[in-house]
């Protein structure tokens, strides 16, 4: 199941040149770029693992692309995303966030039903990726 999260997620996967151009746009606006990865792309999983520190003071996309490639290589079966963080205005926010790498087979989600009081059923989703025991996930 193809995950559609973040900017560009309904488009075909971006090529490295396109990713570099997006990062270049973010850097030109003065945003700091960071790389994050996770095996569990649950929509409510806001905290992906950080791949190194956010990269402040970059001038060119090549530096960030180096980290994107290193992260892909280290976690080929994880999702990798690039965030562009804007601290230029005094308030701080993520301006752009897009997936730059997906596992070859995306495990997707299953529906979990929970019996509530009065025969009510509560639904939630759970990623198949989290089925595996902890030791084989990270």
């Amino acid at each position: 199941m193809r995950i559609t999260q973040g900017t560009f997620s309904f488009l075909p996967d971006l090529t490295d040149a396109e990713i570099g151009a997006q990062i270049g746009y973010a850097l030109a606006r003065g945003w700091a770029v960071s790389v994050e990865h996770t095996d569990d792309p649950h929509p409510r999983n806001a905290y992906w693992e950080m791949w190194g520190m956010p990269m402040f003071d970059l001038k060119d996309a090549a530096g960030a692309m180096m980290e994107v490639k290193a992260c892909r290589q280290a976690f080929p079966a994880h999702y990798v995303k690039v965030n562009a963080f804007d601290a230029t205005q005094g308030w701080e926010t993520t301006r752009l966030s897009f997936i730059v790498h997906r596992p070859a087979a995306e495990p997707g989600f299953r529906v979990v039903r929970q019996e509530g009081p009065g025969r009510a059923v509560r639904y939630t989703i759970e990623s198949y990726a989290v089925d595996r025991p902890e030791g084989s996930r990270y």
Partner: protein
Amino acid sequence: MTATASDLPAPDSVDLAALARETGVPEVLDELERDLVGLAPVKARIRDIAALLLVDRGRRLLGLPAEPPSLHMCFTGNPGTGKTTVAMRMAQILHRLGYVRRGHLVAVTRDDLVGQYIGHTAPKTREVLKKAMGGVLFIDEAYYLYRPENERDYGQEAIEILLQVMENQRDDLVVILAGYKDRMETFFRSNPGMASRIAHHIDFPDYSPDELHAIAGLMLARMGYRLAPDAEAVLRDYIARRVVQPHFANARSIRNALDRARLRQATRLVAATGSVVGRDELATLAAADLRQSRVFND
């Protein structure tokens, strides 16, 4: 099917002069000639590199193979011979010629690259490299990276990461190493990998007294000062005496001398009580301001 640039037949000739004008390189080279006194071998090498990049550009227009040349450099020379200044210009020139994308200069020393404990060096070096990508990385006193007396020194790790990026990401980054000549030679002898990846070794000669005088003139003009007519001879005398003294650092010593002369001028003007000073007096360094230097104390 749509026609792309590669489908079109390549032209048969290219106007190098027009190409040069288009990039604005002649202006940068002229500026270099004007702003930097002396340094003939350095300027000649920069001209060579500019010409090579221009020809490469022409070759690409004609559809000839143009492998980007390796432009990592090593600047050797005594203190104050203009290594950092030229590195800054180099970043501009390479940017105009389209060899680097941004044209900024990141100047670092050993402390910025080498960490203090195991596992600290690699991220530190990589961070500096990332910041320098698209521009020029200037490593001052590069020989400190290698400390042969301590075999567990982390400098070696920084050198290895540096080498890897210098080799694999040649179009993202130009590395310029700088340092004193003899110590750089020792450094290259013990790091043959580094020596073989640096194509351009540029030696910065010491300035002659006349060149130092011209440099002093440029510095004063930039600071908005001028010398009193009788101070010119004093400055000439000062340079002749200073050159042979210990710890002489070429243009840097001249800058310091001028800064001290400005201090003395300020003291002199303030001490002359009750006087109203005019534009001329504020802008003029008198012979006495230079004459008080300890260089004349013998």
